[in-house]
């Protein structure tokens, strides 16, 4: 499928940039500050040979991830000539159901210039590494749903966006024993836009960790992210959202909102929204909250005759619904609200 072929030069640059700008390096403490590494270790066996290392039963996964982090020389050619790499070239508009053949190596999705594509990414069994390259003026709507509980997952989703491209990502996640999602976005071309809406619910002793990293590397690029979570019981919810704006990127508009509801006495919520800004003419804002259901609203509902349990549930659902959109919204609503006690 992935024969050696000419690829646009900027794609090669982009891949090199990805390689040189590591998103998640197990060695960097900061990036793993709140990931329960001891849980992940259940999945990652410490071994000198990265190829032999398994993540959630996937041989070579760590190697692949390390490679991306610049530990291993990885050229674009190598990536595309590597027969184990699945390359999907979307040259016609339409919907695609994604089936990841192997999580050991990345699946590259290339959206051709001018195309408007939709990718549905339902549970892939376990970890997945997906790199989306969105060419000039292309649109990608990427919808992800994770509902299986009995997994340990560490997935990476990367978007490389060229000029005038648009990506809408929705990601709805029911937590598992260990789930870490790394989302990395490189806005390389002017006027590229990235939008993200996501929600997660974690219960029992589940652990979910979302690391989003948006790099604005061209002027007039825009990003808007919303991530709502509900934690119950003794669950841990971690979020790190980094927005980076390079030099000479005027006219960038970046926004990030992270809201968390703590509905159980033993819930841990860590959140770290970061801004790193090197251009002055930008509009940038982030906000993060940790809180409970609003008692006054709760009272209002009860005063209208709704029992407390139903009222709590309604409010929690409402909180999640603010971010539910796209073709998987109904399915996600069912999965997520179903797990709110």
């Amino acid at each position, binding site marked *: 499928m992935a024969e050696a072929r000419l690829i646009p030069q900027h794609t090669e640059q982009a891949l090199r940039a990805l390689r040189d700008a590591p998103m998640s390096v197990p060695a960097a403490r900061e990036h793993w500050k709140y990931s329960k590494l001891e849980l992940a270790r259940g999945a990652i066996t410490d071994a000198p040979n990265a190829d032999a290392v398994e993540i959630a039963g996937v041989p070579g996964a760590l190697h692949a991830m390390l490679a991306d982090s610049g530990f291993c020389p990885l050229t674009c050619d190598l990536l595309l000539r590597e027969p184990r790499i699945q390359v999907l070239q979307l040259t016609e508009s339409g919907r695609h159901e994604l089936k990841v053949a192997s999580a050991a190596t990345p699946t590259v999705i290339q959206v051709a210039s001018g195309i408007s594509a939709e990718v549905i990414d339902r549970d892939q069994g376990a970890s997945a590494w997906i790199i989306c390259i969105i060419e000039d003026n292309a649109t990608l709507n990427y919808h992800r749903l994770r509902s299986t509980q009995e997994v340990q997952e560490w997935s990476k989703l990367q978007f490389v966006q060229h000029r005038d491209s648009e990506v809408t990502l929705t990601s709805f996640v029911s937590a598992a024993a260990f789930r870490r999602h790394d989302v990395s976005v490189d806005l390389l071309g002017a006027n590229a836009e990235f939008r993200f809406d996501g929600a997660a619910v974690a219960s029992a002793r589940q652990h979910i960790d979302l690391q989003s990293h948006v790099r604005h590397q061209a002027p007039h690029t825009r990003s808007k992210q919303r991530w709502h979570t509900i934690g119950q019981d003794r669950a841990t919810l971690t979020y790190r959202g980094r927005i980076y704006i390079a030099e000479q990127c005027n006219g960038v508009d970046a926004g990030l909102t992270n809201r968390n509801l703590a509905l159980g006495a033993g819930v841990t919520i860590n959140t*770290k929204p970061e801004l790193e800004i090197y251009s002055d003419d930008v509009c940038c804002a982030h906000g993060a909250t940790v809180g409970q259901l609003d008692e006054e609203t709760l009272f209002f509902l009860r005063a209208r005759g709704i029992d407390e349990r139903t009222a709590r549930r309604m409010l929690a659902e409402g909180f999640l619904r603010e971010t539910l959109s796209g073709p998987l919204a109904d399915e996600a609503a069912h999965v997520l609200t179903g797990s709110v006690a």
Partner: protein
Amino acid sequence: MANESVHERLQRDYSAGFVTEIESDTLPPGLDADVVRFISNRKGEPEWLTAWRLQAYEHWLTMPQPEWAHVRFPPVDFQGISYYSAPRSQGDGPKSLEEVDPELLRTYEKLGIPLHEQEMLAGVVRENVAVDAVFDSVSIATTFKDKLADAGVVFCPISEAVHSHPEIVRKYLGSVVPQKDNFYAALNSAVFSDGSFVYIPEGVRCPMELSTYFRINAQNTGQFERTLIVADRGSYVSYLEGCTAPMRDENQLHAAVVELVALDDAEIKYSTVQNWYPGDAEGRGGIYNFVTKRGTCHNRAKISWTQVETGSAVTWKYPSVVLRGDDSVGEFYSVALTNNRQQADTGTKMIHMGKRSRSTIVSKGISAGRSENSYRGLVRVSPTAAGARNYTQCDSLLIGGACGAHTFPYIENKNATATVEHEATTSKVSDEQLFLCAQRGIDAEKAVSMIVNGFCKEVFRELPMEFAVEAGKLLEVSLEGAVG
């Protein structure tokens, strides 16, 4: 063009950059256990304190320098620094103003610090402010001691408190910032020279503002002052701290530790206007300001940090509050301005342990020139802190396209009844705003200072009146060169 003339005016010198020619006793550069003993010995310290210092020193040797801050500077040669410098002519600090070198007094006059009580009584400047002045490593004069003593307030150099109030010092020294807390705190614990000590007895409202002015004068010296403020039950104190240093081409290290203890129902308001020499426009020289400031709040107590940071080449500073008591309150109001090649990584830590503890963080970062300005803040809610609340607002203002403004907040919540809110925004002084002001007859420099002052208003409001005015002027001076 007016822009050029603005630019020229902006080259004005750091006005506190003079060097005072006085004789001083300075230890040769280098640090080992003997130096630690020498310092302790020189001050006639009790054995426990010498041992305490040595313990810190031993531990310091095993610690790495922190590298996580968003700042870059060449490694500090800790053996190239002198760890003790004192104005000569007094064995162990002056006993009264008459013993102080007149040249030194003139220095303080130049800095606008009124040492003469009569002058202050005459209401010339800063009426009702008691001042402790620390010159290089030694506290040289503390004013208004008598009036304070009437109220039972102790305000003296810490070196003196070690002897006059040993039980308080021993009980609280290192109780908030342990010797081994971090690299610079450990260094300070080993070699701290002097600093202020304040004790406010139970139920006393300190009758005046207390103030310490720090000044680094000697070359190649580090300044390691240590401040300890203990506010007993139900007491109140407002404390001000000001800092300046002469212009020197090499970097100088300032690694202070400030510990605040607010016992039940006490309130401490701690304000800093930090104007250490920032280095020249090319980034040569300037102070490395690596400071550990922390307070512990007991039940219903309140600690409020207000800082205006305009100086120093590199700032690494996180005034924090451990909200140990129920219903305790922590506040942090900060303006950090960086220009030219200054770097600042500053913010706070609010550690919520007590029930219904509350904290407020308002941080205003202003970046100009080629500077880097980072806010780094931690809000941690422990499982015990039921009903804790935090509100954080963190705004950055950029002036020019060559600087960086960064925000690194950490929120760690382990209590489901806590509420934490964090907001951050970034804005710039736009050409449109400057043009509107110009069209209404206001020149660019005035316009920028007006906009910056407006941006900082919420923090200035927290400063004592006279400091607020001073802070506003300081920003104006520090921003010179930022427009045009």
